[in-house]
């Protein structure tokens, strides 16, 4: 019983010392950053930019994804009819198509409606007045049944294309699919870029720590001679790396947030032109936390590798 108590007390004491030494190392590293403001600013800025680049591309992708989501569920087939066909003929064709297999419904956009809409949205009002006749064809928007497989919808497309009245039949989903594939390529690219720039951050932090170790050689020797363990000597350097990573990721967040702020108004104007309520999304809380976590991890690991490599070479002399 007594023995157990004593063991518990000694574990408590060891934990206390451990925590205290961590606090000391942390405060010491903060002091080191503060003592060398220019170096800290430069290094953390480089880290910030290296983190901001992949994060920025990621943000761009997220926004593009949001935009694409609006299109992806539309599997509509647009039938652009021959120019010579009148609205009445188009209406009767619509009836015919509605009865075809796999078709859920058909909506007609008459050439007059299309022109009116285009006039409203495009801003080419005056230019359109110059035209003697309406250049737009009648369009049938065919909505296929929702449970149609890709092959069946392809077959439907072929059948619709064969109708003599149809000039062009276009499956809207094809665009969505193409976009989706392009996005996949972009995603891979961003991932690759993140890996490369993450590695760059590792190297930057590693080199910073290497220099710090070199400058504090004498101090390390004295500490070792007076009985400092390797863990004790490594600790401030690890915190130094961690702080660099965190400050760097904060700078990256700041850069991204300002970029979004600068782009927000023009993007809103642009999307209004397309009668969309699309808004440029910023990083968000989880994004900021993720970026900081990435920065912190890269900072600590860079410091860790550097410390492992360089501290062993210093022995008390």
């Amino acid at each position, binding site marked *: 019983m007594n023995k157990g108590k004593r063991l518990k007390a000694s574990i408590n004491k060891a934990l206390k*010392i451990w925590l*205290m*030494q961590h606090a*000391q190392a942390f405060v010491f590293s903060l002091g080191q950053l503060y003592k060398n403001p220019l170096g800290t600013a430069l290094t953390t800025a480089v880290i910030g930019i290296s983190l901001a680049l992949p994060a920025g591309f990621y943000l761009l992708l997220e926004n593009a994804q949001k935009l694409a989501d609006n299109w992806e569920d539309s599997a509509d087939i647009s039938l652009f009819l021959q120019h010579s066909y009148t609205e009445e003929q188009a209406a009767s064709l619509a009836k015919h198509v509605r009865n075809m297999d796999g078709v859920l419904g058909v909506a007609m956009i008459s050439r007059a409606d299309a022109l009116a809409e285009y006039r409203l949205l495009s801003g080419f009002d005056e230019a359109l007045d110059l035209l003697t006749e309406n250049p737009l064809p009648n369009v049938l928007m065919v909505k296929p049944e929702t449970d149609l497989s890709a092959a069946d919808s392809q077959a439907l497309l072929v059948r619709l294309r064969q109708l003599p009245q149809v000039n062009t039949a276009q499956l809207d989903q094809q665009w969505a699919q193409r976009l989706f594939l392009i996005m996949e390529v972009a995603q891979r690219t961003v991932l690759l870029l993140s890996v490369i720039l993450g590695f760059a951050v590792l190297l930057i932090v590693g080199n910073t720590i290497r220099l710090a170790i070199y400058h504090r050689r*004498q*101090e390390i020797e*004295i*500490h*070792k*001679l*007076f*009985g*400092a*363990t*390797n863990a*004790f000597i490594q600790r401030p350097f690890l915190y130094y790396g961690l702080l660099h990573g965190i400050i760097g990721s904060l700078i990256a967040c700041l850069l991204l947030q300002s970029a979004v702020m600068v782009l927000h108004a023009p993007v809103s104007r642009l999307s209004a032109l397309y009668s969309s309520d699309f808004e440029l999304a910023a990083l968000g809380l989880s994004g900021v936390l993720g970026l900081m976590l990435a920065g912190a991890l890269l900072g600590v690991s860079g410091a860790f590798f550097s410390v492992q490599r360089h501290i062993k070479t210093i*022995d*008390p*002399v």
Partner: protein
Amino acid sequence: MIRFADVNMSYNNGQEALHKINLYIERGAMVYVTGRSGAGKTTLLRLIALVERQAHGQIIVNGQNLSRITGNRISLYRRSIGFTFQDHRLLNDRTIFDNVALPLIVAGYSYQETRKRTHAALDKVGLLARKNAMPLALSGGEQQRVGIARAVVHQPVLLLADEPTGNLDPALSWDTMKLFEQFNQVGVTVLIASHDLDMIKKLKKKIITLRQGRLLTHIGETVKR
């Protein structure tokens, strides 16, 4: 306290630094190691501090066989030793207090305990009033005393001093040696490497003389000339 048995030591360049050293220093003794530069004085201290390893033979310090001390146990072993150096080796970007407190902080003493002991050590060398000064603001003699305070603040059982008076004038050297004597009187084993033979002889302590890596005087024998 310290026992060397047939200790050989050569550096990487093949030069033999110590040859077949046998010696015994008892607990609580104060011993001078003397000899010309390159005679092996510093090597002897470095072996005891586990900065170097002997090629052959056995070294026992404070009941521990040094060949068996490896890894993190080296750190723990060194906490029982205090060091002073000819060039003081203070950390110039830290206050006197922080310099002297270093061995305690390394060992994980609480702040209160660190403060108390550091103040006591600084008081002992007469520099408590300068505790917030930076090392470079102090004279050479004062810096040496800060170094000594740092060497004893953690109450080591063994004090190793490498040329402690090398850069000091005779009067200051004498004071420094007297300071070491005071620590010796409270039970610390003191080993001082010095080439200042004239002064050493006046101090009437045991002397170990080295010449070209060999022991010239026998264990505990005093040089008479």
